[in-house]
C-alpha cells in the first residue's frame, strides 16, 4: 500500500474496496470489527486520515450505521463495512437512510449463516436480506462483484449511485471475493468519474428538502451550509415534517421506490459470456460467477451451447434482460451459495418462458465449475 493511485497492484478484495471508495471521494468510515470484512476498516483507519478524512470505530454495528448517516448529512461521502450478523443490526438505520434519502454505501462481505454461522466461509445467504432486510416498502440498489477488479470499480459505482439517487447502496461481497488477491490496475484520479449529490439551486427560504426534480431525486443541502431543515424517521412531507396525510404518504413511498425503478437502465450492470446462440444460460453473481464462467468453457469444449449472464447489479433485479434471455434459451440454471434466493427473482422475470432450475450449496464450500457442468448435463438428459 505504498501509493494510492495509478499502479498495478496485487490487492485483496477488501483492500480494493478501500481504494475504490477513496477514489470515489469517500472521506468517512464508521464500522465495527467483523470477519470477513475487517480489512476494510483497517485500510480505512490507515488511509482516511492521510486524505484528511475521518475514521471511527463505533461501539456496535447499529452505531456505525448511524454515524455514517450523520456524516453523510454533514457533507462527507460515507461508507461502512460488515458481514451478515452486522448487516442484520444495520437494517434499522438502513431503513432510516432509505426513507430520508441519505447517500451512503454499506459493504456486506457475506459469510455462512444464519446467526454467527460460518465466519470464515463464503456464502450468498444475504441476497434477500439486502433486498428486504429492513421493514416497510422500499427499493434498494445492490451490486455484487465477482473479481477484485470488479470490487474496485463497483465500489466507485456504488458511491456514485448513492449520490446520484440519494439512496443507500449495498455492495455484496462474499468471503472469497473479500479475501482473494488479484491483479488490479488502479485508475488515475482523473480517470474516475465522480458523481456528487445535487445541491439546491433555490434559497434556504424556498428550499423543500424532499421535493423531487424530474428524475424523482430531490437536491440535498448538507447540514451547516445555511439550509435548516428536518430529517425524521416518520413519514414526512416535502418540508421534511411528519405527516399523516394519505396523499403525502402515498406520494413519498411511491417516489422513493420509483426513483430507483424508473432509472433501472442506468443502475443495471451485466456481463455476457458466450451467450450468442446459447440454448442454455447460467445466471450467476459474486464468486459463483467465476465458477459459472469456468463451467461455460468446459461446456463449450464439449460442444454444449451454454452461456453465462453475470449479474453485477442484483437489485433492482434486471427483469427485462432476464426475460429476453428466457426467450432465447430453453433452460436457465442459477447456481448460488444459498438455498435459492436470486433464482426466485429469475423465475419471476422469466414468467414461464423457459425452464429455470436452481443449483445450491450451503456447506461453506465454493461451487466448482465441474459441479455446475454436471447439473447442466443432468438437465439435458432429463429432456
Amino acid at each position, binding site marked *: *500500500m*505504498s501509493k494510492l493511485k495509478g499502479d498495478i497492484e496485487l490487492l485483496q478484495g477488501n483492500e480494493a474496496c478501500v481504494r475504490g471508495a477513496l477514489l470515489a471521494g469517500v472521506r*468517512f468510515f*464508521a464500522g465495527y470489527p467483523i470477519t470477513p470484512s475487517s480489512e476494510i476498516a483497517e485500510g480505512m483507519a*490507515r*488511509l482516511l*486520515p*492521510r486524505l*484528511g478524512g*475521518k475514521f*471511527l470505530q*463505533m*461501539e*456496535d454495528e*447499529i*452505531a*456505525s450505521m*448511524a*454515524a*455514517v*448517516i*450523520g*456524516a*453523510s*448529512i*454533514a*457533507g*462527507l461521502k*460515507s461508507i461502512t463495512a460488515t458481514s451478515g450478523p452486522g448487516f442484520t443490526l444495520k437494517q*434499522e*438505520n438502513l431503513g*432510516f437512510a432509505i426513507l430520508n434519502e441519505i447517500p451512503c454505501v454499506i459493504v456486506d462481505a457475506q459469510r455462512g449463516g444464519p446467526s454467527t454461522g460460518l465466519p470464515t466461509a463464503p456464502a450468498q445467504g444475504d441476497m434477500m436480506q439486502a433486498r428486504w432486510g429492513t421493514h416497510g416498502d422500499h427499493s434498494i440498489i445492490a451490486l455484487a462483484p465477482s473479481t477484485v477488479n470488479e470490487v474496485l470499480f463497483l465500489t466507485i459505482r456504488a458511491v456514485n449511485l448513492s449520490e446520484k439517487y440519494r439512496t443507500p447502496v449495498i455492495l455484496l461481497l462474499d468471503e472469497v471475493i473479500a479475501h482473494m488477491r488479484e491483479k488490479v490496475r488502479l485508475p488515475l484520479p482523473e480517470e474516475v468519474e465522480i458523481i456528487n449529490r445535487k445541491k439546491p439551486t433555490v434559497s434556504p427560504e424556498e428550499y423543500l428538502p424532499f421535493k423531487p426534480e424530474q428524475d424523482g431525486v430531490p437536491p440535498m443541502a448538507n*447540514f*451547516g451550509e*445555511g*439550509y*435548516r*431543515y*428536518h*430529517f*425524521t*424517521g*416518520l413519514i414526512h412531507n416535502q*418540508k421534511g*415534517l*411528519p405527516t399523516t396525510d394519505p396523499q403525502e404518504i402515498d406520494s413519498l413511498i411511491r417516489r422513493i421506490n420509483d426513483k430507483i425503478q424508473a432509472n433501472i437502465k442506468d443502475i443495471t450492470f451485466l456481463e455476457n459470456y458466450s451467450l450468442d446462440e446459447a440454448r442454455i444460460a447460467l445466471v450467476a453473481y459474486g464468486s459463483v460467477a467465476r465458477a459459472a464462467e469456468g463451467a461455460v468453457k468446459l461446456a463449450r469444449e464439449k460442444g454444449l451451447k451454454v452461456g453465462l449472464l453475470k449479474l453485477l447489479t442484483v437489485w433492482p433485479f434486471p427483469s427485462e434482460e432476464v426475460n429476453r434471455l428466457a426467450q432465447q434459451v430453453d433452460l436457465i440454471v442459477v447456481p448460488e451459495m444459498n438455498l435459492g434466493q436470486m433464482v426466485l427473482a429469475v423465475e419471476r422475470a422469466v414468467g414461464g418462458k423457459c425452464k429455470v432450475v436452481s443449483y445450491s450449496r450451503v456447506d461453506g464450500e465454493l461451487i466448482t465449475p465441474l459441479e455446475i457442468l454436471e447439473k447442466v448435463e443432468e438437465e439435458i438428459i432429463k429432456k
Partner: protein
Amino acid sequence: MKRDIEYYLRREAFPHIWCAGCGNGIVLGAILRAIDDLQWDKNEIAMISGIGCSSRITGYVDFCTMNTTHGRALPFATGIKMANPEMKVIVVMGDGDCSAIGGNHFIHAARRNIDLTAIIVNNMIYGMTGGQYSPLTPSGRFGTTAPYGNIDQSFDLVKLATAAGASYVARGTVYHIRPLISLIKKAFNKKGFSVVEIISDCPISYGKMNRMQSAPEMLKWIRDSAVSSKVWENLSEEEKKDKYVIGEFLDVEKPEYTELYAMVVERAQKLEVGK
C-alpha cells in the same frame, strides 16, 4: 440582542403533540433561552433526537434537525460532529431512549468525550407508548408494565456519565427553571461530552399511575423531592430516600475527541503509511 424564543421555532410545525401539563415545553423553552443567551447562529446548530415524546422537540425548532431512530441519537450526532466539528451539536433524549435502548451509545459517547451536549428529559416513564416503566423509574413506583410496583433498580445517570468519561454533568428540573437555563448554558459552552439530566413531569402516564393526577401535583412533587448538592451531602441514607440531588456534579477539562482526531490526521499526513 435578546430575542423572543419564537425566533427559534418552526411555526409551521405547530401545534405540538405534547399533552397539557407536560414538562417538554419547559425544556424546549429552557434550551432556546440558553441558545439565545449565547447568541448562537441558527445555521451552526444541529439538534438531534431519538424516539419518544421529548424527541419530537427537533421538529419544532428552526435548526438543522434530525429525529432519528430509538436510542440512536448519539451515534448519528457523533457522525455529524466528526464530519463537521464546527457545528454545535445538541442531542435531546428521553429516559428510556437514552438509558435503555441507547444505554450503550450513551456510555461510549461519554467515553470518547466528543463535544456533544446530551439533554436527557427524565420523566421516569415511557410516555409515548402509554406508561411502561423505564430504567429511570424509581424502585417501588408503578407503570403499566409494573402494575405491582417496579422491582428494578434505577440508573443514576449522573454517576453513569461521570464514570463513563464525560466532561460536564449536571441535573436540573422543570420546576427550577432559572438554574436549569444556566446548567444548559454551561453544558453548551463545555468542550467535550456534556450531560444535563432534567427531571420532568408526565402527568398522563407517570402521574396517573403514581397518585399524582395533575401537572401541578407533579411539579410540587418535583419541587419537594429535589435537594441541592450541598444539602444532599449532609443527609442520611434514610433522608435521601425518595429524594434526588440537583446541581452540578462534574466540570473538568480533558482532551476532546474531534481535536484528538485532528491530531491523528496530522500524524498520518506526516508519516508514510506502512513504515
